[in-house]
């Protein structure tokens, strides 16, 4: 049945809510890519079979939801209405959960999360330290809805912001509200969204395009994927509001093909909302028409750059062009185009529903609202965290993330993807917002936050990012194509023991040439990881160049694997796994590595339970 007016939307929402009992038990299983990798799909089936078998459908609902964020602990199960939080749930646990927890109110101790700092077992989702300090505004709904169900989204108030806008707000008033909220682009640039909308609205040309940038290319960042996968309607609603404000009738979502579930869920969401007549011609009887198509990328990082993205959407190679004219004037097909990132669009319905003043209360002076970060790398609680702007890095890493794994010490946190930088410990107490991160030589970027410890070599990390960018440079302009390659070659030399005095200075001078001469932001920011590691970890560069040593024990050519006799128990695991068969020793006696045969593959070190394999 089509929803043809605001009244019909209201009654549909009421109908859905009346048919649902908020007190009815609901077992929600996280269906994000992380939990799916741990077997969440089978778990959903298991719950369904059990409930069907026991004829409990009237008492218990099952819902496969979007990503809850705490990917480290997957598969995650939350039982409503009590919000009992179970982690690492296996297939065998389903029966017990249904009978003991849901029907009998018992708590299953072995499925509870234990706070590593206090040793305390935690029962409810909100009390888990990982979630406690977060402000899950944009991301919070993920856990309550099945992303493939429009009804679920409507039940929690979905599309009410769209209805509010279409039912009496002038487009200019919508733009004014977004400007007042000071919503800044979450894709990395931090550019004012309201300003962009206004420029596109005022630009001459027809049609005007509205695009959602879901080409989340920054390695180590996956918040956009989880939003698209977990709550696609929120993005669609944001885009529809934007399109109305701008005066656009055509929209695109440009999404990475590496995210198959996001493609699937957003495509399903579009179909469902179109079926209901809430996307397409004359939306909700307001006279406003708008439709969205999904276009997939081809695995090119540069396509996250606006002009390259347009080229890709036009069916061409994704090469950026010089931006003398803004995309708001001439973007896709040379028409006025407004491009915002997934998370930016997701913020829009909240601003409309709760108002710019409410939104302004969250965050710092010039960075409003929340930001989702993907907290990954050498950290205990890996996952997606949403925090109000202005929280310190230390709070995120230590309180939410639970610090670095036992036995290792924090060295740096990398933000901003390949365009960002590495931030050392001395800046951990700095509140995070767009401007503060830029000030210390990194940037917000799309929200990747990769924690590095004493086993991460900063020179090697700089080389890693350059290698990445060398491969992703489109090759159009010389400074980026040749400069980045030369820098990578110098870093190869340093990491492989051929470093020379003056190399660091050469890297610095090349960096500035690339920053000044590159056509697009990919090249202009490419040297950032190198510059920031030189600035904060110069001594590591020196150790590589002068002493030919890698203090972190990473750079193959500069290290040797050795067995510490005191720690070695002679269990023989390393010898069994060694592909070069170069580890020998009597049973229960310390073993020895034959340096001539060792290929430095690292399998002994990763497999030793006694930390007996050391690197020199």
């Amino acid at each position: 049945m089509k929803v043809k007016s605001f009244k019909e939307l209201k009654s549909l929402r009421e109908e859905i809510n009346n048919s649902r009992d908020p007190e009815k038990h609901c077992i929600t299983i996280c269906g994000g890519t992380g939990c799916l990798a741990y077997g969440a799909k089978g778990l959903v089936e298991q719950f369904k079979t059990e409930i069907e078998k026991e004829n409990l459908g009237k008492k218990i609902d099952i819902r496969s939801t979007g990503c809850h964020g705490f990917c480290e602990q997957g598969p995650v199960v939350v039982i409503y209405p009590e919000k009992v939080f179970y982690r690492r749930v296996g297939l065998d646990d389903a029966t017990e959960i249904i009978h003991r927890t849901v029907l009998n109110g018992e708590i299953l101790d072995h499925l509870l999360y234990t706070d590593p700092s206090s040793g305390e077992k935690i029962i409810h989702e909100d009390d888990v330290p990982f979630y406690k300090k977060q402000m899950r505004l944009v991301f919070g709904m993920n856990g309550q809805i099945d992303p493939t169900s429009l009804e679920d989204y409507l039940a929690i108030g979905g599309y009410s912001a769209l209805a509010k806008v279409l039912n009496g707000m002038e487009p200019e008033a919508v733009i004014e509200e977004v400007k007042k909220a000071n919503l800044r682009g979450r894709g990395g640039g931090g550019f004012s969204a309201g300003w962009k909308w206004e420029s596109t609205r005022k630009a001459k040309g027809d049609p005007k395009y509205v695009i959602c940038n879901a080409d989340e290319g920054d390695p180590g960042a996956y918040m956009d994927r989880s939003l698209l996968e977990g709550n696609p309607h929120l993005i669609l609603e944001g885009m529809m509001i934007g399109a109305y404000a701008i005066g656009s009738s055509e929209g695109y979502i440009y999404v990475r093909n590496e995210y198959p579930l996001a493609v699937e869920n957003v495509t399903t969401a579009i179909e469902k909302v179109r079926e209901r007549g809430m996307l397409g011609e004359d939306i909700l009887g307001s006279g406003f028409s708008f439709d969205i198509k999904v276009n997939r990328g081809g695995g090119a990082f540069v396509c996250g750059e606006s002009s390259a993205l347009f080229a890709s959407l036009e069916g061409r190679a994704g090469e950026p062009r010089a931006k003398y004219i803004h995309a708001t004037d001439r973007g896709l097909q040379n028409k006025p185009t407004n491009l915002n990132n997934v998370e930016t669009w997701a913020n829009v319905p909240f601003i409309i529903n709760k108002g710019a003043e409410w939104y302004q209360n969250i965050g710092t002076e010039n960075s409003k609202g929340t930001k989702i970060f993907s907290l990954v790398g050498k950290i205990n609680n890996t996952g997606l965290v949403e925090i109000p702007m202005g929280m310190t890095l230390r709070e995120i890493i230590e309180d939410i993330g639970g610090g670095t794994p036992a036995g290792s010490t924090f060295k740096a946190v990398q933000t901003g993807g390949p365009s960002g930088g590495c931030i050392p410990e001395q800046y951990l107490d700095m509140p995070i917002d767009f401007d503060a991160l830029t000030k210390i030589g990194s940037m917000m970027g799309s929200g990747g936050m990769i924690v590095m410890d004493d086993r991460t070599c900063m020179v090697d990390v700089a080389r890693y990012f350059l290698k990445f960018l060398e491969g992703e440079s489109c090759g159009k302009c010389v400074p980026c194509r040749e400069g980045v390659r030369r820098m990578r070659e110098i870093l190869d030399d340093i990491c492989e023991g051929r470093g020379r005095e003056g190399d660091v200075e050469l890297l610095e001078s090349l960096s500035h040439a690339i920053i000044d001469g590159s056509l697009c932001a990919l090249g202009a920011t490419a040297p950032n990881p190198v510059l920031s590691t030189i600035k904060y970890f110069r001594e590591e560069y020196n150790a590589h160049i002068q002493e030919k040593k890698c203090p972190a024990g990473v750079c193959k050519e500069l290290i040797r694997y050795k067995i510490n006799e005191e720690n070695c128990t002679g269990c023989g695991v390393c010898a069994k796994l060694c592909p070069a068969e170069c580890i020998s020793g009597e049973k229960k006696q310390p073993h020895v590595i034959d340096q001539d045969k060792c290929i430095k593959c690292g399998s002994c070190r990763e497999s030793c339970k006694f930390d007996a394999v050391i690197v020199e």
Partner: protein
Amino acid sequence: MSGVNSVKKVEVKVKDIIQKYGSDKGFLVSILQDVQKEFNYLPKDALNTVSSYLDVAISRIFEVATFYKAFSLTPRGRHQLSLCMGTACYVRGASLIESNIERVLGLKPGETSPDLEFSFDTVNCLGSCASGPILVVDEENQGQMTVAKTNKILKKLGKKVKTDES
């Protein structure tokens, strides 16, 4: 099957794919993704069909097919391994796994073995950072990868993993 027939078959399949996108040139990348999914690589006949049905010059099609990392103009191996080289996987030791796979398969990332048994690739980030390092073996994500685990997987797929065996 005769050559003419197989060309016809390719043509029919490619036409179906193009129609799904309403013959819109803007969806060229998506169309090529689907063609690659169908044939495991981008066969020349398929590209010719795309060119004529979308009315896009073959040179342009090749430009796109060679620009994007996802596409392959040569047949891919029966077993496909792709290793995530996102930053989170990298700091957790993906590069050691990369060199180990290179050693065992004798392939650099992007290469396919001459017997078409194996293809090895690296990808920039699969967004499953929590369970990194990730190795995708024939479309199945395998998390918390280690050098020893890769050896086990490769052994199962029929490769010799010890240095003196290869």
